[in-house]
């Protein structure tokens, strides 16, 4: 079966002043459609860099990144932006919501890039806010919401355009244990019930246990793999 995500011989290096630092070394990884994959590893192991490549936020120095049959490393900047808007939802550790917009306006942001009417956008936003249990908080700004609620808004924003892939970078890293489990439960629900493929970077073994597969990275290479 064709994997949803396929990385072959991926190398990523950065310039740091006069030095070139290779972060990922000739990395191969396949992720099947509908998987919930946890990427674990120590700081500096390349987890976020790998996540950025899969999400089309960055380009590999060498190798190929294929997602849903699309060679995203070959796409132009504009094409890659449009591809992200259609196929990927992002959830960050610090939520990255627009502080001046209400919850519903934050969730609506990806839909502004579509041809949906205002009424259709409102309907979609209301549906995902209901899914994450924040209907009564839709008019609140991020500063008026708790960390857990802000992350729920971020998840609602990530799924409102119905992407196939959810890319989550330490989504519970800024939350207390109880709230973290609620968020992880929500991601698991989206994976199991809505069929979203989820790739999550985490340091936390407890968080990783919600995934169906765990991949360990160390010094820019896959170190070990385990079924959760």
């Amino acid at each position, binding site marked *: 079966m064709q994997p949803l995500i396929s990385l072959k011989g991926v190398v990523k290096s950065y310039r740091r002043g006069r030095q070139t630092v290779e972060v990922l070394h000739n990395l191969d990884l396949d992720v099947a459609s509908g998987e919930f994959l946890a990427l674990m590893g120590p700081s500096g192991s390349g987890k976020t860099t790998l996540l950025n490549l899969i999400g089309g936020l960055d380009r590999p120095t060498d190798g190929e990144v294929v997602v849903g049959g699309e060679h995203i490393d070959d796409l132009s900047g504009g094409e890659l*932006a449009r591809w992200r808007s*259609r196929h990927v939802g992002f959830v960050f550790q610090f939520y990255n919501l627009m502080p001046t917009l209400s919850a519903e*306006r934050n969730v609506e942001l990806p839909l502004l890039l579509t041809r949906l009417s205002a009424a259709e956008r409102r309907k979609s936003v209301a549906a995902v806010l209901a899914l994450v249990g924040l209907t009564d908080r839709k008019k609140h700004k991020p500063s008026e919401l708790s960390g857990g609620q802000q992350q729920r808004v971020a998840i609602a924003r990530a799924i409102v355009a119905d992407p196939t892939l959810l890319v989550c970078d330490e989504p519970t890293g800024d939350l207390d244990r109880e709230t973290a489990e609620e968020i992880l439960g929500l991601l698991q629900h989206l994976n199991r019930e809505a069929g979203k493929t989820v790739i999550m970077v985490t340091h936390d073994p407890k968080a990783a246990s919600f995934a169906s597969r765990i991949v360990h990275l160390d010094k820019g290479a896959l170190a070990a793999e385990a079924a959760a």
Partner: protein
Amino acid sequence: MKFLHLVWAGIWRRPVRTTLALISIVSAFVLFGVLQGFTSGLDKLVSASHADILVTQSQVSNIDPLPVAMAQEIARVPGVKVVAKVLYFGGPFRSPTEFIPALAMDPDELHALDDRLPVTPEQWSALKAKRTGALVSTEYAKLYDLKVGDRIPLKPQFWANRDGTHVWPVDIVGVYTTDPDDNFAGNGVLLNFDYVDQVRATGASTVNVFDERVADPRRASQIAAAVDRLSTNSAHPTRTFSERQLAQEEVSSIGQVGLAVQLIAGAVFFALLFSVGAVMIQSGRERTAEFAVLKTLGYTDGAVFALTLVEALILCALAASVGLAASRGLYPVVVKAVGFHLNAGPIFGTGFIVAAVLALVTGAIPAWRAARLSIVDGLAGR
């Protein structure tokens, strides 16, 4: 339009800073609006003056007296259709700070001279019927709260009446619509020449100027020369020119007003470029992570560039609208203070072009930076 709330939220991200920036831009546009009104008023003064009306005054100055009897000789000059005698009678009334320009003239002559004046036949008749009558323009009626039936004291500095005072009671018999384009009789007070002439203590049977209407404006200079030849070698040599020429000379006598005004406005906007530019750049820097998030969500570099630039455009257009509207509101105050009619002319059109240039210049750098931002660097706060 669907992005408007996003742009609006970006503008008001820091309300205090945005308010201060708005105040500085609004202030600049208030100044711009008033200065433009001034230069535009000067231009209009010239363009609206009549080419078919000649003004004859003493070669010495326009307040030197000319004998009324000259009117009959001037009327015989070929090409002259109408002659009207005019005495400048303006000055303070009620208090030294309340000034009204006033002309003493013959109602029939002035009506025949210029039927474009916004005075109705009934108002002319009312003026002729009352010796001490006066017609007041709507602008001054509003400014000093005057109405038909009021008796007001004019206090011209040059003209004493026979009782030895400078107080001339006149009765308002009509209020005519101000014609801001007519700098001669379009805005002020019109009085009966006979009343003034019979009551004044000195200078009887003299006027300041004769106005002539000519049949063919293209022959205005030849007719003017013929009028002046009448008084060559007399005790009252005259100088005759078209109303338009007079207006041009008056404007020139003020100096290079247009240039001075443009230099002042230019200096203000040059300073504004730096202050608004600094605000826009600072705002852009603070929102690095937000731009990165927008790009993460699929907003292209071009979209982020456009959104950032539109913020600057809306900010400047909003401030320009408020500033220009406020400057228009200030016109009556400025007119009262400087005694010169301002003309809005194309200030809104010109103002919005200036606002657009200001926005493009100040918004271009942050917009370009936002567009060039690497998502990874932006999310990492670099």
